[in-house]
């Protein structure tokens, strides 16, 4: 996939104060994502991949550096960058239908248009039979479908996904990964997807960006040129898996050392 650059991250630092010390969650991040590209941010916990995603979403702006979308710097969250959270974050007081419609309601779109859009998305995500259910009555996989539909409803060109399938069982997870790929091909979104699963990154992404553990920097930016649908048992897939495992293990090791140091200090 190639195209004009859609998201541009330049020289981004994010500094947190922790116990009087400055901790670099992100350090000198440069990353460009092309229109329609599917990019995975991969790394151990604490590597700043979610911090980076939140910066692009506009929830927590970088300490320095710039993030632009179509050349316009990000200053706040907005519906042009729809976000899907790991914990689904559906509004429990709204039915499936109402959750999906909410973003359009905010934009004061005409009722008939909203209804048509909601109907279309219910079909697209196989949720027709659940339209009047409340989130508490849905399985994790179903909830995440609703969360994806809610973002698709506002038609944002960019989808930000923060470990969206992390809490799901393996089968549901593969199922939703396939659906996401189908939707992405159909709707041509730019996707920035955070995960700590190597296999997930290799299965989904055009490009996988491996991040380092504290300070969060980019360790490797790897194009995945395998044809889709990808065969997780193929030698090529496993060669890449091995390569990424190696990279991640190094970071995981540093993470553990850090925790031991922390334990010794405590």
């Amino acid at each position, binding site marked *: 996939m190639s195209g004009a650059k859609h998201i541009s991250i330049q020289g981004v630092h994010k500094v947190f104060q922790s116990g009087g010390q400055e901790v670099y969650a992100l350090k000198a991040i440069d990353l460009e994502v092309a229109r329609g590209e599917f990019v995975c941010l991969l790394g151990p916990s604490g590597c700043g991949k979610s911090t980076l995603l939140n910066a692009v*979403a506009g929830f927590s702006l970088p300490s320095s550096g710039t993030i632009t979308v179509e050349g316009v710097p990000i200053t706040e969250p907005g519906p042009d960058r729809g976000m899907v959270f790991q*914990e689904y974050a559906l509004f*429990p*007081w709204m039915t499936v239908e109402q959750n999906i419609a909410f973003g359009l309601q905010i934009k004061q779109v005409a009722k008939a248009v909203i209804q048509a859009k909601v109907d279309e998305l219910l079909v697209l995500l196989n949720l027709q039979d659940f339209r009047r259910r*409340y989130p*508490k009555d849905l399985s994790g996989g179903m909830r995440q479908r609703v969360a994806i539909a809610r973002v698709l409803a506002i038609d944002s060109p960019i989808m930000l996904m923060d470990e969206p399938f992390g809490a799901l069982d393996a089968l549901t997870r593969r199922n939703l990964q396939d659906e996401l790929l189908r939707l992405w091909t159909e709707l041509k979104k730019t996707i920035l997807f955070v995960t700590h699963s190597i296999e997930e990154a290799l299965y989904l992404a055009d490009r996988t960006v491996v991040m380092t553990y504290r300070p969060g920097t980019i360790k490797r930016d790897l194009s995945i040129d395998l044809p889709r649908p990808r065969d997780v048992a193929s030698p090529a897939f496993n060669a890449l898996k091995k390569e990424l495992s190696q990279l991640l293990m190094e970071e995981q090791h540093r993470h553990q050392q850090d925790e031991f140091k922390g334990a010794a200090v405590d």
Partner: protein
Amino acid sequence: MKRYKHAASGILVPLVALALWQLLSSMGWVNATILPSPLRVLVKWWAYLRPLEAFDSAQGSYLKWCLSGELIQDALGSLYRVLVGFFIGGGLALPLGLAMGYSRVMYGLFNPLVQVLRPIPPIAYIPLSILWFGLGNPPAVFLISIGAFFPVLMNTVAGVQNVDSIYLRVGRNLGASRLTQFTHIILPAATPYIFTGARIGMGTAFIVVIVSEMIAVNNGLGYRILEAREYLWSDKIIAGMFTIGLLGLGIDTLMSGLSTHLLKWHRGLEQS
């Protein structure tokens, strides 16, 4: 089936207690003035409930006659005060609670005063309430609204403050204005707390109405209990007490039914 079993086991203890009580009285082990038997209470209760005069169509409808008993009139009087007091107290507490929960500035401004006034029991306002409002319903309603005010206020504040921030993040992400976030996210998310506050407030209103009727009015269940005391009618006192208990239970059941209906999306503690 299971439900009936449940209800049956729930009725067992009261029945045993009643039987014991009846036994105590029948055997003459307690003075009937100090503790009249359940049967005597029941008889008095009926006398208290039933219309005083025979039905006469010239005096009005049959329904009006049915409701003309002393107990019904007292219960209606108490209920009226409870509801008016509850809606005044709760109606003032709700907007203030929403403002205090939403805005740090409002919280900083009002919280110290609230914390000083909150521990004062409504009963302590009795002298002032009479000075300010004289006798009759106004001082009683005033006391009840104070009783209902604080539970609604505290729970509303807590409800708004405890809205999970992820919902607000979703709202901002979807482009919701501050007003939309308030009306469509914060308010519904806080309703379970608000309903809890309303239920506690209603309970407090019931406690306060009885006390308030002992001072300033000449009907209502609280007044009747005090009046019965003057004549040492302990059977009527107990009948009045049970009436209060049943009325309170009825209202609480109604409120909890209403909240279950309105909060059918809610499943107690929110999981993700």
